[in-house]
């Protein structure tokens, strides 16, 4: 469904991504793991059109995204939950959700969609009239995901979902993500520092380091690999422990 091939991305003169290639299939949950500054968010921003690749190309359902502005890419069915949630702070919860349905098609069915979001995250219904900046961190993350779902995306990308949330909330939200993936066949691209959580709900994963894809595999294989255990889970491989 989504195919990135040999993409180089620059911030001005600074190269941030080197020859990145990855694919996300229909209804898959794929995760991108890597340390701070490895280029995970850059990859997401490039897919969503906020950054443009210098070389290489990105296609979605056979459509080339290279030249499209961000709002057009969002219109094709790629939704992003940006790092730090980026809600509209002085708009109500309801208005934030409505903003997610800016596409005409989504706008027509928005009342039903809002009902569905409220089922997924019941607390948002109670907060409907409140301004987004009065919500707690967990509620904000739920609203950000809800807003992204309002457009009925085929691909949902989430940047650092677990950042600043309690383990219980992370569990709750990842359960919802797993659920919408199963019930609505929405593909999910998860960028996470919580590698354990990400790999536990994902089908496949990519490892990114220094702006390059350094490894990939099924989530199960990655969870078992020494490299992941050592670098991200803080577990020393057997026999080499100190």
């Amino acid at each position: 469904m989504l195919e990135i091939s040999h993409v180089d991305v620059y911030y001005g003169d600074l190269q941030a991504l080197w020859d990145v290639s990855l694919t996300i299939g229909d209804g898959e949950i794929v995760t991108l793991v890597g340390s701070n500054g490895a280029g995970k968010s850059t990859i997401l921003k490039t897919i969503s059109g906020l950054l443009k690749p210098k070389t290489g190309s990105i296609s979605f359902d056979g459509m080339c995204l290279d030249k499209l502005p961000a709002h057009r890419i969002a219109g094709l069915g790629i939704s992003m939950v940006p790092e730090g949630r980026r809600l509209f702070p002085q708009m109500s919860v309801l208005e934030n959700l409505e903003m997610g349905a800016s596409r005409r098609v989504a706008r027509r069915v928005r009342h039903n969609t809002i009902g569905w979001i409220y089922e997924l995250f019941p607390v948002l219904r109670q907060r409907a009239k409140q301004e987004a900046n009065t919500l707690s961190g967990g509620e904000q993350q739920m609203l950000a995901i809800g807003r992204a779902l309002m457009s009925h995306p085929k691909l949902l990308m989430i940047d650092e979902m677990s950042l600043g949330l309690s383990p219980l909330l992370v569990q709750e939200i990842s359960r919802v993500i797993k659920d919408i993936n199963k019930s609505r066949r929405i593909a999910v691209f998860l960028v996470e520092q919580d590698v354990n959580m990400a790999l536990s709900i994902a089908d496949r994963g990519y490892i990114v380091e220094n702006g390059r894809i350094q490894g990939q595999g099924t989530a199960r294989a990655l969870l078992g690999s020494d490299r992941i255990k050592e670098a991200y889970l803080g577990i020393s491989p057997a026999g080499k422990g100190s």
Partner: protein
Amino acid sequence: MENVIQTIAYGIVIGALYGLIGLGLGLIMGIMKFLNIAHGTFIMLGGYVSFWLFTLWGIDPYLTIPLVIVAMFLIGLLLYKLTLSPLLKLPHIGMRISNSLLITFGVIYVLDNAMTLVWKADVRTIIASYRGEALNLFGTRVPYTGLAGLGIAVLATVTLYFILSRTYFGKHVRAATQDAEAASLCGVNVQKTYLISCGIATALAGIAGVVIVSSYSVTPTGGLSWLLIGIVVMVLAGEGNINAILPAGIILGLVESASVFVVPIQYRQAIALLIFIIVLMFRPQGLFTKRG
């Protein structure tokens, strides 16, 4: 006592016009962080368009408003496309104010000279049949043109409030103002909301121009003093606080007209600038904004 009521009436009427002037200026500043100092010049242009329609076809100045809105809206689109949109490429949002100031300063020169070519440097005004007549309310005289200006300012403010709070376009504008990048991720064409907002702001300048040409007068360079008033109103209201602009305008009008009790009348204009300085010193966030 009658004197006081007359002063209040005058203050409200002129203050409503001040609010109308600040509305378009505050809209562009609030949404895009551009300071359009050609706003006063666009007011003059709107006045000239109305003047033309009145002299050529004898259309009542207030009935020219729909035509002025359309003409000025289109000019606003041009203003955005030709001069303001390139500024969005600036790396920091803070650089927009100073750069838009420079660019719209150039726009003033071009328009000033164009207007002088077309309409000469003469003072132009519309003397409609009811000009100079006034409504007499228990001894307080309110000119009909002033009443019309008040009504138009209130209508414009309410309409703008309605557009921004109730329509999808308004929601897009507010979202783009609060976080342009997040708005584009939601599928909002931020450039397009900017373009249309710029058209609306320029149309608002045109409406103010109609009020001015039928109660006062227009000249090619007459926009500057109205622009100053608009900037003072915008600062009083607080940046981006569009709903507070009409009240801020009326406060300024009231203070200004009440000042004649304290200082000679020729200092009236200085009062606005004095208030401007005091507000910037003690309440730079504006009179109506709670958060500092």
